[in-house]
């Protein structure tokens, strides 16, 4: 199993451009999450999904959109990129809640710079 994969690994965007960050998991997990991590900081939840066709906002959703058409994929869309969106973005997945704790598996991250 590859686990959680993210593409691209690095990207530089100009202000106002748009892009999609890709996230795929091969563990058949129904829960998927997008976080951003600013330098020296913890993780902030952007959006999450508990299954195909279901998405919900996290702590910092403004400026982002998501979709979940399949169990495996959970892309994050940035519209009209702004310097404040410069960050490292992590995708994570977890299985259903019959396990103790919502144990999450993370991808390697996408480092995004908006200039």
């Amino acid at each position, binding site marked *: 199993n590859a686990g959680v994969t993210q593409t691209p690994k690095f990207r530089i965007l100009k202000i106002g451009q748009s892009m999609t960050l890709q996230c795929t998991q091969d563990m058949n997990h129904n829960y998927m999450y997008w976080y951003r991590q600013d330098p020296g900081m913890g993780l902030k939840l952007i959006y999450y999904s508990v299954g195909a066709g279901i998405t919900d906002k*996290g702590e910092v959703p403004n400026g982002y959109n998501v979709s979940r058409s399949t169990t495996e994929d959970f892309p994050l869309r940035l519209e009209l990129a702004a310097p404040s969106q410069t960050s490292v973005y992590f995708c994570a997945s977890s299985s259903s809640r019959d396990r103790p*704790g*919502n144990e999450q598996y993370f991808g390697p991250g996408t480092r995004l710079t908006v200039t």
Partner: protein
Amino acid sequence: TQLLEQSPQFLSIQEGENLTVYCNSSSVFSSLQWYRQEPGEGPVLLVTVVTGGEVKKLKRLTFQFGDARKDSSLHITAAQPGDTGLYLCAGDTYNTDKLIFGTGTRLQVFP
């Protein structure tokens, strides 16, 4: 808003020293997890504690969940340079599908 405060925020020690990282909240959690994140990588789960008062050991790392399920600690014995990284605690609540992540503790262990 539920918060998980970690202390200390930064820790820089010599190889062989012991250390403790704390994770505190005013909220009750159904379980609590600890993750370690190395530079340029995503967080990796170390342990999940579920029962109040529970103690789990992972080699030189000892994790404890508070009796009231509001706090946790991570103790490292005889730290090694390979322990260097960002340590994150994360609490799972009873009624949501989200984790509450702590503010993080950045550990640097020098040879």
